[in-house]
């Protein structure tokens, strides 16, 4: 027991093994995300009653909050992977960190867009310089900066390592931004609006929310593995295992 776990992890770090492992996990993760998402949508759109204050508009919560949570969770995973990549120089960790960035940016963009669509009927405005909204916008810029830096280099690995460093800088920066924006709001008496009251949501509203959070987690796994597989193919284009795979793809019809 004590021996085969690290051995297995070590093997998983090698690109061909991870490629196969990710390929095996991918359909299951995507399928689970799909099933859980469908259940959550049914619960959120049909079963859950309308909110007594916000009417049916609150149903945006079932995608807005899971997306917001994922935008931070993915940054956490990315920070961990970037740290591992820089300290132990593991190529797979670099790939995981860089593959996470577009997914995180997608969830951040969804959070901003759905939050705006929720804010318009509730507050009467598409955008307000509230601490949480502003921090989320800054997070989107951080994600875009990481993606941009990664692609600005000719050499793929060098770009990934520089961007991994930027991930760590951003990880220090996000809490500081949140704190400073909070302070700024108290100074300027900005509109502080609480959308989510202290959690006294009905159970019929809570379970679809939690299910959707699970669905987005599985979706992240699926999308991450799909991207890592693609990156590995591109990075190891000349290696024997990729060539075999490409040739087998022609013979078998599907890679």
């Amino acid at each position: 027991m004590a021996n085969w776990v690290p051995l297995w992890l070590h093997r998983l770090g090698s690109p061909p093994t991870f490629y196969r492992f990710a390929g095996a996990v991918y359909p299951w993760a995507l399928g689970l995300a799909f099933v859980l998402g469908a259940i959550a949508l049914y619960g959120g759109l049909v079963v859950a009653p309308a909110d007594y204050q916000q009417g049916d508009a609150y149903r945006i919560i079932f995608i807005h909050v899971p997306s917001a949570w994922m935008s931070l969770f993915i940054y956490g995973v990315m920070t961990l992977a970037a740290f591992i990549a820089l300290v132990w120089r593991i190529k797979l960790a670099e790939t995981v960190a860089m593959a996470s960035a577009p997914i995180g940016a997608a969830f951040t963009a969804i959070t901003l867009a759905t939050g705006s669509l929720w804010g318009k009927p509730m507050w009467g405005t598409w955008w307000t310089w509230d601490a949480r909204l502003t921090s989320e916008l800054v997070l989107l810029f951080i994600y875009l900066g990481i993606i941009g830096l990664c692609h600005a280099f000719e050499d793929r690995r060098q770009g990934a390592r520089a961007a991994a460093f930027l991930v760590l800088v951003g990880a220090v920066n996000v809490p500081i931004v949140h704190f400073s924006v909070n302070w700024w709001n108290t100074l300027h008496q900005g509109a502080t609006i609480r959308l989510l009251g202290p959690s006294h949501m009905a159970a019929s509203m809570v379970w679809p929310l939690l299910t959707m959070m699970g669905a987005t987690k599985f979706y992240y796994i699926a999308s991450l593995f799909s991207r890592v597989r693609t990156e590995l193919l591109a990075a190891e284009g000349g290696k024997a295992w990729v060539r075999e795979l490409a040739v087998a793809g022609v013979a078998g019809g599907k890679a």
Partner: protein
Amino acid sequence: MSAFLAMGGYGFYVWTAFAIFFIVLLIDTLAPLARRRRHLREIRARIARQANRRRPGTPARNESNA
């Protein structure tokens, strides 16, 4: 059914939000799949080119780091 679609007057906001959610995630799912297919095609094309270039009688050059 139409009451469900109207969402108590907030239908536009609710359905636009859900549409954005699904469209963005759909693009996010399809983009790497398309890119992977392109990479595989390029690798196959390169293998084919190398096979053509190799003259009969000479051993295959190892271009593993191409």
